[in-house]
């Protein structure tokens, strides 16, 4: 259990770091996929098998592929540009991220009292239970989610399909 956790967390942290730092966008996205998959493994360690499956299905199968498509549509295919990849105020960004980590997140985590072991060692929710809770306390949320996804679908198509560029517009 411990070994699996450390392996997966090493993979997740490396994947995430490479995903944000690699120059080549396609490589960055592939590293992101490894990050997603290692998080799915983490969910399996936490006995949330269904969430692991959904994580792979949605993140690797859909979001990752979507990002790859977006890269193909907006970027040179090789992705090897020699330009500066960091923004102008990158030092401020680095400082802010480290500050958040070391002054807010880690102190709070290290100082608070947390349970060391799960209350029920072998509890794994069945898909049936997840489905039933979606139908009983979370009905409205589920409906809203459906609405959100539909709106996102239509919105994405509408935003991306406008092919009018500023120079094509007739000037009045």
């Amino acid at each position: 259990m411990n070994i699996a956790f450390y392996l997966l967390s090493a993979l997740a942290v490396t994947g995430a770091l490479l995903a944000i730092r690699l120059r080549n966008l396609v490589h960055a996205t592939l590293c992101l996929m490894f990050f997603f998959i290692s998080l799915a493994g983490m969910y399996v360690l936490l006995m949330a098998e269904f969430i692991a499956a959904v994580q792979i299905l949605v993140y690797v199968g859909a979001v990752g592929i979507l990002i790859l498509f977006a890269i193909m549509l907006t970027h040179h295919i090789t992705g090897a540009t020699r330009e500066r990849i960091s923004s102008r105020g990158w030092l401020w960004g680095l400082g802010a991220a480290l500050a958040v980590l070391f002054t807010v997140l880690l102190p709070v985590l290290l100082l608070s009292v947390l349970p060391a072991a799960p209350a029920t060692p072998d509890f794994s929710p069945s898909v049936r239970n997840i489905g039933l809770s979606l139908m009983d306390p979370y009905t409205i949320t589920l409906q809203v989610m459906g609405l959100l996804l539909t709106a996102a679908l239509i919105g994405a198509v509408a935003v991306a399909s406008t092919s009018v560029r500023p120079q094509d517009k007739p000037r009045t």
Partner: protein
Amino acid sequence: MILNTLLDNPDQILVNLFHQGAALLQACPALVIALGILLSTVPLVAIFPACFAITTWLERKGLARIQNRIGPNRAGWFGLLQPMADGIKMLLKEDIVPQTSDRLAHFLAPVLLLIPAFTVLSVLPFSRNMIPAAADTGVILFFALGSISTLPVFMAGWSSHNKYSLLGGMRAIAQMVSYEIPLVLSTVTVVMLTGSLNTVKIVEFQQVTHWIEGSNPALQILGQVLKWNVFTPWGFTGFLIFFISSLAEINRCPFDLPEADSEIVAGHLTEYSGFKYALFFMGEYVSAFAISGLAVTLFLGGWSGPNIRPWWSEDPRALLIPGFVWFFLKMFALILIMIWIRGTLPRLRVDHLMAFAWKFLMPLALINIFIAGAYYYLPHWIGWPAGLIVIYACYEGLGRINRRHLGPKRIYRYA
């Protein structure tokens, strides 16, 4: 003694082997776990590449006969050693990597393709108690792991640094993503009626348990066959949609646009040679087995087939012909149909391919879900014919609507 217990119930051979082994290794629990892992993975890793070899031979022979040729007949008896010869040839070939390619991704792609292809096999129940991972989320796990396989295809296409490869890779992704929707929607019906994502429960739902456990052999046979999902209107439609989408999902003819050799050389495989090409090939065939296996599990009754209980057996669920024999028979029947289709149909055009998925299969799959819901609540003597009529009407209607967009019928003057 051990052999006797193993042969007593041929259906449960691996389970009994595990129990025997566990009894021997009682002292060391870690070894028992290792034995369990070995017994559930080694057969998969051994059997499916062998099936791959047989299928390449079957495919070459079948296609040859369809075209009135003889097919491979030199290596071994009826050319049966041809896969071996192919394998040796592939191994000995030079492994060419394009100079401008992305070395790491180019190397990783075929390896990464094999991982999801083999892992999805672990949720298929090959026989009673013979499932490597009896996950509660079986079906969704299958699709989740299967959806990873778009990634190596893209990696292969992109890393080769070849425009044909890239085109093939992009085509493959677009096709796999589009056809995943009707594929998943067609399984929803089965999951709805069974009330579980667990593949074992889905198979058991397709058996009439009290007939099988009864004493009448005729009823035992009927009970194994009669309740297959494919024998209901929604099941049959679902099976057709599933099968067609699975053809697209594994890039088989007539949806083999990603590797359309007459248009884009070999798509994402263009820059692969030697052993890596063989790995790609194997990955494709193993995913074909996996998705046929899922079709068998969901619609064709999994391991159940015309079967009776052996007269010597005490176990009420024992089977004379082992369940995995039926499973593999049905799986190979589906593979043969795929070969037959490959020998018959020409390749689709890209826009037709997309239109077929989004304008025909997806609406039909959605309608099918409603029909399955109605079937669940209606008595069967109404639900069956009514479902059939509604499904047929929708099929014809969708066909008519789609035909209008196809334009006038083309006349081939020189063909």
